[in-house]
């Protein structure tokens, strides 16, 4: 049995999911993929990842919703969540404004466009 830690990537940008998966695999992580919040929750129940990389804006169930549900559930609240957010310095360049400074229970966040090396650091720090 593999001793690789499983990282779940949840994002509706399929190209980004693929790029993150390649990067994580190159760092010797196992990767599970989901493309919206509901599918992500199913994968979490099935596979219990060591960490979740979670996009905010997704169909059906957004990242905030999923994060809130997980962090308020005793079964899952200990799984670290890293949010991917298009806020930070991109506020002027998107029509998404982080809901006026909404706070979340996520363990960390990375602004988009993602610095992949920075994300890897954050992943390792949160495991």
């Amino acid at each position, binding site marked *: 049995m593999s001793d690789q830690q499983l990282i779940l990537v949840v994002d*509706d*940008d*399929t*190209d*980004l*999911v*693929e*790029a993150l998966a390649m990067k994580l695999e190159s760092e010797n992580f196992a990767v599970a*993929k989901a*493309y*919206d*919040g*509901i*599918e992500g929750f*199913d994968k979490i129940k099935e596979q219990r990842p060591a960490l979740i990389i979670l996009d*905010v*804006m*997704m*169909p*059906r*169930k*957004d990242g*905030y*919703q999923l994060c809130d549900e997980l962090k308020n559930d005793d079964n899952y609240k200990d799984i670290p969540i890293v949010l991917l957010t*298009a806020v930070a310095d*991109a506020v002027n*360049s*998107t*029509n*998404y404004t982080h*809901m006026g400074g909404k706070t979340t229970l996520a363990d960390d966040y990375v602004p*988009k*466009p*993602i*610095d*992949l090396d920075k994300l890897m650091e954050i992943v390792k720090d949160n495991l």
Partner: protein
Amino acid sequence: MTDDRPHSLSQSVQKLRLGGIKFSEAQVRLVLAPAGRDPDPLDLSRILAGFAKYHVNLQQISVDSAAGTVELYLAEQDYARQRILIEAELGPLDLDATVVAPVGTLTLFPHGSRMEVLVKVIGLAGDPDLRIYALGSSLSALCLSTDLDRLDRTAAALLENFSLPEGHSPFRYEPSELDRQVTGGAGRIVETIARYSESVIKIYGSKLQTGLLRATVCFPRDYLDRVLEGLSQSGLDRFEMMGAAHADSGRMLVHLMVDPDRGKGAIASLRERFGDAREIDVVEQHDMELLFFHGPHFQDRYGVMCAAAAALAKASIRFTCAACTGTGIHLVAERGVGGKMLEALGDVFVVP
């Protein structure tokens, strides 16, 4: 999920697993070509500037520099709103335009660069009922364009060869709570639509591959099954990028960027299979270079490809073909050009 129902031998064929399928909303397909004149290297940046000027997002773009053709997909609502302005911009360029609407794009993912996936997907183009206009690849996905009302039929045809995970996302976008809050219930937030005014476009990264083989096969659509059989038995198991479209007179054109050694074998295999059949043209271009820029959200942002084309035109750099599919841009060029493209585009794109 296990299917315990009895099934015939033909139904027991192993299906390939996909992560998902999604449908675009209604789009317009626009094919532009020089009207009875030679292609002008500056046409592309002029065309794209016409759209960028009015903040129109181009959701997919495919460019064949030799023929001078530019195939574009944009949201039907954008076209309806900006059509007169766009036509005024493009009018002086002396172009023939073919407009098809409403069309839709079916995106299936991930392809995993697997030829076996590609062969099964291209196979759909042989079914006239599905009316596949074009196919293209992104880093993770294959995108097929067809008539909007044929998307469901196309997905059903795909699912004869592919399986989806249990609980997969719906094909059509379903708004989240955040969508509803931000739009007041009106639908989907588009993360970056028409709001970028950056002098430098932030991207996730770029990748330059050199020494690739570009294989182009043009054939009558009746030959599709035989061509695909040839490709699937050629030993070629991966592709780096692909595009396909219907050409004139019922012919189809498929081009692939592949590993040179395996690609040579595949072309030899195709030539052996078809002998001197005049109906099938196989062209191989060696030492080709493939430059890929990765998003984010290029398909939701106006002016990204325009900025790339303008930078390349300014540096007098010619590329063979280009595609903006999914969230990336692929540029194909001859030997030695990839590095120059990368340098010229360094003024436009930055990895934060």
